[in-house]
């Protein structure tokens, strides 16, 4: 698969994934550009993989988990706050959904990543475990703690997670 083919077929979904993972536009921009610049320069190798888009998602996930530039992120949050104050949307600001997103942003990154992979991407715990390099039990532990922190009631279900939104 050439980079052009990847971009045409998967880039939009990958960018959405980065946005949901990062939580704001500026951070998503940084995350996507950091990863895609590296991926582009190594595309000869990545393009030959069976699922290049899966590899790029894993790169994004790893980059997100290893981000340590807290001062930069703080600056981005400041920017976000400025933008939010410039264009007030009171209905949104007080909505339950925004409150949930606010709590989501406070979660440890691994817990947040597990929730995004499970509930946004709809991936089963076994696949999430592969992506994170841990066991499915650990994934369930992360999810359980995250859901408890968010006061989200889990729906009892056997087997794999629902695949509500898988884009590849």
């Amino acid at each position, binding site marked *: 698969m050439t980079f052009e083919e990847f*971009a045409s077929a998967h*880039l*939009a979904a990958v*960018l*959405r994934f*980065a*946005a*949901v993972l*990062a*939580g*704001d*536009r*500026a*951070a*998503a*921009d*940084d995350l*996507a*550009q950091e990863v*895609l*610049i590296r991926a*582009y*320069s190594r595309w000869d190798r990545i393009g030959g993989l069976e699922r290049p888009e899966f590899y790029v998602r894993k790169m994004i996930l790893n980059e997100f988990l290893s981000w340590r530039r807290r001062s*930069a992120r703080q*600056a*981005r949050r*400041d*920017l976000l706050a*400025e*933008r939010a104050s*410039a264009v007030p949307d009171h209905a949104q600001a007080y909505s*339950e*959904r925004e409150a*949930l*997103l606010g709590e*989501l942003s406070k979660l440890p990154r691994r817990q947040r990543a597990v*929730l*995004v992979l499970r*509930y*946004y991407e709809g991936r089963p715990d076994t696949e999430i475990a592969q992506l994170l390099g841990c066991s499915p039990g650990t994934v369930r532990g992360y999810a359980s703690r995250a*859901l408890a922190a*968010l*006061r*989200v*009631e*889990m*729906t009892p279900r056997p087997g794999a997670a629902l695949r*509500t*939104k898988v884009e590849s």
Partner: protein
Amino acid sequence: MRDEEDLRAALRTLERHAPDAEATLAAVRTTAGAAPARLVWHRGAALTGRPRGWARTFAPLAAAASVVAVVTGVALVVRMTGPVMARHEGKPPVSQPVRPFPTTADGIPAFFMLYPAALHSVQPNGPSVGGPGVPPLMRSYEILPIMATATGRKVAQVRLPGYVTAIAASSGAFFAAVVRGPRAWFYEVRLTAGRGGTTTARLPIPADTAPIGRLAVSPDGTRLAYSTYVRHGQQNDVQNLVVASTANGAEHRWQTPARDSGGSIGSMTWLADGRTLAFNWYRPAGEVTTESSLRLLDTISPGHNLLASRQVLPLINQAGAFDDYTISPDGKTVFGIVTCPRRCATGGPGTAGGHPDVRGSLIQFPAAGGAPVVRYTEPRLPGTPGNVVGSKCGDPLWISASARTVLLPCYQHRPRTAAHYSLSTVHVVLLDNGRVRQVPWLGDLADMFFIAFPGITSYDWVPHLPPSP
């Protein structure tokens, strides 16, 4: 208690933060040093009542281009170095004079800076100044490449800590206006000797909260000029000018008098004396009229009236109508591309050097007055009606001190017919004292990017034909 569906719905709302795919690709390709992406750009906003010079600044860059490359190359010799990512942000370069860039065998500055044209249009504190409808794209950093004139290849790149809104170059360094939060800051970028790297320093110039228009830096890099927008409801006009010392930030500000508040500043260039600033002035704002002109401002003189500057040449004259002018560093020669729109005030296409139809040609005027001459006309594509659409040239990318040498981007358009596909090609020619030589490796760059050579930042763009199916 929330349920899982609430969580899914909340996560899906974060998709709204997804970066723009085209802009991301442009940034990735620019940074990775690949050949310029051949993308179809559709971002931008309608510009009503603006001259084409404004449209060049803010209009969306349209579709893909091909390079006219089957021509004789120019023998340019410059030492090349490998790309290096600069992350150093040091103290302001006070009392450290910068050495001029080396030149190619043809005397052209060996380096220039690029900025992806499609990314330009967003300003601090809101949407694009070009019009409504453009979503904010306030990046937390941007990476700009520095290219070698001799090859068109990247030799270095610099990471700037915010959203870049304007770039410029002195004779030995590059400069950028960088938006962070609600303010624009100014940075200097120098190439480090011998290693192909760069050093970046934030200049001591006070940050400005107004949207930045254009940027120009004196040849010695000691004085930076920038224009800013004034907003009148839905209207945005460039009416303020600031000249600041890059050493200590001392500023002198000019503004448009109230009675001329409908005017607007266009592109700016410094003369070699480092004192005189040339700028295009549109009055009423955004219009090419007989009152619009190239003006010279003595930046050392006291006062704050922008129109105390001296008019050099009106944008409509006997040679036709011009979107804007570029003046040579010695201040003696003025260049412009004839556009002559339908309402050309002279009532016709104009004449220069005895040629009755010079539309799209590069016209050269003596700044002191005198007859204009045609310096270059783009050859027309034979046998196609594409000439009607326009084989033309854009404003110069660079002009030598005495205007002997000019680097010029030119375009040819061939509309689709039953026999062939539509085609828009861009190439760059070097006009050297009567000789015309091709610089094919700069063609794509002139199409896709803003280019900052010492003295001139090109904001040109190519109105491509619709792509063939």
